């Protein structure tokens, strides 16, 4: 399926997308839960204040200054929503694309830091996977590191990818297939 992203990335002719990967769902869930809890703190405080005895100063202020409190609560909730949206955007636009020729790593860090890197499969040398910690082990997500032979390309490291061992196998298989293609048709390496 041809999509906007691939139009931007411009895949080579006959290049096939094997898989696309985002960070593990647990990562964004935790981020959003923290933001939601943070956003609801003043709501809980407000409810706590309402439980105070009616004659207390705070309670009197709550009764007389309701529009101001509503304004502050709405502002706080709006700021929390913007934070949640930023987090979701970073998660969703952060993408890993494995094709039969290369790995495209898109790092979306906030709104003003976007990096798109390409790593040719024939130049990849060593792929390491590490799953560290209780939750990553239980939910099967971790880190993938790869080294490239080319001096012009950097090594890459991607965090919190789901099923990193499966992804490693897919990359190895794609690498082997690519090297076989290049051996059979040496001009393929120039494409």
């Amino acid at each position, binding site marked *: 399926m041809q999509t906007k992203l691939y139009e931007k990335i411009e895949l080579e002719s006959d290049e096939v997308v094997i898989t696309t990967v985002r960070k593990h769902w647990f990562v964004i869930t935790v981020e959003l839960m923290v933001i939601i809890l943070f956003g609801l703190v003043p709501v809980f405080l407000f409810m706590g204040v309402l439980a105070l005895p009616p004659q207390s100063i705070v309670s009197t202020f709550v009764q007389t200054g309701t529009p*101001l409190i*509503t304004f502050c609560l709405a502002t706080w909730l709006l700021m929390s929503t*913007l934070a949640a949206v930023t987090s979701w955007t970073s998660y*969703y636009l952060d993408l890993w694309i494995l094709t039969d020729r290369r790995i495209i790593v898109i790092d979306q860090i906030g709104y003003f830091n*976007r990096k798109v890197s390409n790593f040719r499969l024939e130049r990849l040398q060593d792929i390491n996977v590490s799953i560290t910690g209780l939750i990553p082990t239980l939910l099967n997500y971790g880190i993938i590191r790869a080294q490239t032979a080319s001096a012009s390309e950097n090594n890459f490291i991607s965090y919190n990818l789901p099923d990193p061992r499966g992804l490693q196998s897919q990359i190895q298989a794609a690498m082997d297939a690519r090297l076989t293609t290049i051996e059979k048709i040496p001009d393929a390496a120039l494409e």
Partner: protein
Amino acid sequence: MENLPHLILPTKTIVTLVFYLFLIVYATFTVVFYYHWQNYSMNKGATTATHIAYFGITIPLLALMGLSLLAL
């Protein structure tokens, strides 16, 4: 310290200024957010759902801010 002029504004003026400042921040944020999703998203469904959720939550909150400002 005593010779320094004191700037005392009524609460409604301060809240109104905060509201307008927040409107500018919100508008800027929305433009950047919309641009990113239109240009970099690969899934139209996800883009639409995100936009609906974003505007569905933020516009009522902005309206609430405006209404509470009027009630001050």
